[in-house]
């Protein structure tokens, strides 16, 4: 490396250091910065002359010059800070309590959040998310689920009709039939969606959300149904959540089980939310009724499986402590902003 340039740099550094140390008045800082570190300052112009060096010399000299620039800048900052401090805070340090420039952040609907969480838990177990139409044929919504036209169980759900054989689906269960129609076992799917019932009062909205699940394979047992849903509830509500399976009735499952969890509000002592029973109904489930396999051409002796369904609003209400189902569809920002 050209010793002349090196000497020049060292000399400049020494001069500048001396000069900084001599500064006592903050108003002298800026002239100094311009003189040495500015765009047209002494150091900058010296560095420009690096261009005249040979190709081999250039990197080393560049590095050397840069180091001097870094050192000098640091020294300058130190002096600047100590001068400012010495002046009794005449120039205040940055006010970190001044609000930052916050980007606007939106909120997802709590129903979306719960559906995502439910689907994630089942996806991790190996279930695939599927969907189906909202306007459904009577065949899929009822008949193929072992609910023939004159079945009293049709009274369990008040139905919106589009025409004699077309309904707004009253549950997500028709998706089970649609999946089985197009896919041979093994099947493991989860199906979230909107459902509709002709019911509107304090505790009912005519539209709400469900998530349906279905697993069909060889030798699937009720014990595995219990295992799957126990895992789900422990993931969703915490691993110390107590739950129970009790016999119930759905036309498309046999045996059928309702799944209750210990009331999350009162812990089982009995309160208004659990109608003083200490338990909350969370899921309907059961082993797929062989009658349903008949509609989708599965061999009921070769395969077995289970299905389950849950109401999302109810889970969201329990999870977030929401006491009014109507809130979900008012879309009040004071509500949405909380999620």
């Amino acid at each position, binding site marked *: 490396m050209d010793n002349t340039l090196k000497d020049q740099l060292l000399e400049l550094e020494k001069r500048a250091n001396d000069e900084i140390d001599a500064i006592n008045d903050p108003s002298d800082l800026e002239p100094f910065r311009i003189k040495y570190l500015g765009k047209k300052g002494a150091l900058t112009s010296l560095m420009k002359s690096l261009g005249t060096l040979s190709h081999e010399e250039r990197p080393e000299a560049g590095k050397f010059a840069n180091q001097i620039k870094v050192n000098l800048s640091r020294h300058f900052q130190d002096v600047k800070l100590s001068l400012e401090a010495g002046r009794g805070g005449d120039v205040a340090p940055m006010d970190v309590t001044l609000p930052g420039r916050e980007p606007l952040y939106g909120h997802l609907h709590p*129903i979306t959040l719960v559906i995502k969480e439910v689907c994630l838990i089942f996806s991790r177990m190996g279930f695939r998310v599927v969907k189906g139409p909202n306007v459904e044929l009577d065949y899929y919504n009822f008949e193929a689920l072992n609910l023939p036209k004159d079945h009293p169980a049709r009274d369990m759900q008040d139905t919106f009709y589009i025409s004699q054989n077309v309904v707004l689906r009253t549950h997500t269960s028709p998706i089970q039939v649609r999946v089985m129609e197009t896919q041979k076992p093994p099947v493991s799917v989860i199906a979230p969606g909107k459902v509709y019932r002709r019911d509107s009062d304090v505790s009912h909205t005519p539209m709400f959300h469900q998530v349906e699940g279905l697993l069909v*394979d060889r030798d699937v047992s009720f014990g595995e149904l219990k295992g799957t849903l126990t895992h789900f509830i422990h993931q969703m509500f915490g691993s110390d959540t107590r739950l129970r399976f009790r016999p119930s009735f759905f036309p498309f499952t046999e045996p059928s089980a309702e799944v209750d969890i210990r009331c999350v509000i009162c812990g089982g002592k009995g309160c208004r939310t659990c109608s003083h029973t200490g338990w909350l109904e969370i899921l309907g489930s059961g082993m797929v009724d062989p009658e349903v396999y008949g509609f989708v051409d599965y061999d009921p002796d070769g395969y077995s499986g289970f299905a389950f369904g849950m109401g999302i609003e109810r889970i969201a209400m329990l999870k977030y402590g929401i006491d009014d189902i109507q809130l979900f569809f008012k879309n009040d920002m004071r509500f949405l902003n909380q999620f």
Partner: protein
Amino acid sequence: MKVSLNWLKEHVDISLSPEELGHVLTMAGLEVEGIEAVGQNLDHILAAKILEVTPHPNADRLSLCRVDTGTDIVQVVCGASNATEGVLAPLILPGGKLSDGTKMKEGRIRGEISKGMLLAEDEMGLTDDHAGIMILPESTTPGTPLSSLLPFPDWVFDVSITPNRPDCASVLGIAREISANTGKPLKSFEHGVDAKGPIIDGLTSVSIQDPDGCPRYAAAVVQDVCLKPAPFWMRYRLFQSGVRSISNLVDVSNYVMLEMGQPLHAFDYDRLGENRIEVRRAEKGEVFTTLDGVKRDLDPETLLICDGEKPVALAGIMGGLNSEIHEKTKNILVESAFFDPITIRRGSKRLGLSTEASYRFERGADIGGVISSLNRALYFINLLAGGVTAKGIMDNYSKPFTAPRISFRPEKANAVLGTSISKSAMKDYFHALEMKVVEDGNQDNLYVIPPTFRVDIKREVDLVEEVARLHGFDNIPVLSPRITPSEGSESPDLLLRDKVRTMMMAFGFSEIITYSFVSPDSVNALVGETPGALNAFTRIMNPLTVDQSVLRTSLIPGLMETARYNILHEMEDLKLFEWGKVFFDRENELQPLEKICLAGIILGVHTEKSWYNKKRPVDFYDVKGTLAVLLKGLGLEGFRFKQEKDLPGYDVSISSGIYCDDTRIGLVGFASPEVIEAYELKMGHVCLFELDVAAMLSALPEKKTFVPFGKFPAVHRDLSLVLDRRIECGVIMDIIKEEGRDLLESVHVFDLYEGERIDQSKKAISFKISFRSDRGTLDGEAVNGLYEAMVEKIGQKTGGKLREG
């Protein structure tokens, strides 16, 4: 079904506490929704004898009673007309509570002291009777606490009955379940009567024209009955089960229905033409008045019970006015029948008439229990209404029932349940449920024959459920599922939806969910006078309200409505989006087209005044910018915005289509004045957008491919133009892109000026243009050549010139 614990105890021994029993029933599939204690607050109520009744000096309707409380003689004021000298009635003393929670206090009524109150049954929550005070038996000793006189304490269980278990819509049915689950045997009960009347064959006959609709019809006749109110204990139980008391005869049929599950009907024998019964279908146009006084038009869907001349009842649903029991009834015919469930359901649906009887018949009554229920009724009629019972029962069993013989594989049951229950344990379960079990020779299989009341047991799987129930769901092991990853992939819109939601949220938008059904008028403000595609509604045949009578064809009304709602609640700066389906009716298709859309709205202030920003209302470029970043972020390339007029709901001058090639994938713009007015929002600055998800998906490149980035430095040029205000920026940018050819990397608009410093008809616009080559460092000359070509082309095509200075 509501049922009293003491009534259950008549049929099976119960040593469990009410709570424990509730748990047993719930875990057996009979969910107990509530347990209510009855007669728990009778502490301060005792039997009192009225010694003297004198008129109240200050009130015509009241009297003063001197009553003997066993330990004292006190005065009470009473308004009941049956408060007469010598009768015994319940008296509540000061300190006691009525069933409605009112606390009794000593006080003066119209100036006269009343040290308590003589009570009617309803005031103690025992029945709904308020006709007068409750009269206690003459043999009662004054001072006896009421609770020891009545069968208290008692609890009423509210049991939810699933549609497959009509047998449990009865005291006996629930008792059977308790017996099966606790091992306590069922008790026998009184039934039948020592018949002293004439032989029934001479009194009536039953003919059935439709054996499918009515496989069995049994009738009994009782003569010289005495119609009067039923006794307290029966009225009490009916009341607790939610059935109104009418008279002893009507109450008996209701009581036996609740107890045995078999609906019965009592006719006035003398009002039956030819005193006989005929069962047939109604004819079209036939009219019949049911005992609720309603005239009903019938058709062959309805099964009728007729006498020799006319219809007298809607089979299994409701009796008729013309054969109803009344004060002067002397002789009665009691019906106990089995009707086909589907026939009853169709008739009941058709007439819109659902009763306790039709509820049970349409789910399935017990064909084998027809006679025992009738005998139970005859026992109570004789007990409560006296009379002479005709000898024998007319039992027309025209279509005998054969119970199914179900092949059952214990091994299969264990496989389905994941259990290892022994065959003998399973047999015990079946026996406990009154099922017959037949061994199948050498085989491991069994044959199981369910009792007639278990209409739900038809197949092997139904028996598997019974095994599971009696074994206890709790005792079935919890097993880890083996899940084979299933074929097929998730629908692409689901993946897109998650990305879109996350991005919209990061852009400051909040998600809303609105109802899929709307008012047909909701699109009026969007489409104007002439109906368009948005009017292709799918209509709901039975909507709850007109406002929810059609399926939405656009997400805009929901967004606007939500905006209005929030503005009314003082939240005026909104960024909202909804991802949802819209529905378009299609000719010749049963189901509408379901299209997934993403739509949004921005209104109010974009940035509030702050220490670093000026306040600014939202404008078109806020939404456009959001959409551009969204689309780019999703991987969509080459989309463009084209001004378009006549977009439904959008302002004619500030609206644009969003295109990928020639496909319109969405709309964006200001809401039209009509829409703003319809939702009572403030004019200006309401921006809307809609994207068609399917169109977006098909415009997306199939896969993402990495493009190596340039190794050589970029060269930048600023281009400042003055041109006619009406020339769109996009036109200039197109020229820049075209002329920049493959060396053009990006164009950025960094300034736009319209104002005093230039001609009024002009605008000044400045671009920063970046060039880069992937073959080497760009030569300034080459770039200058391209730059000049651009300026020239812009001049030719738009008259735009370089801005001086």
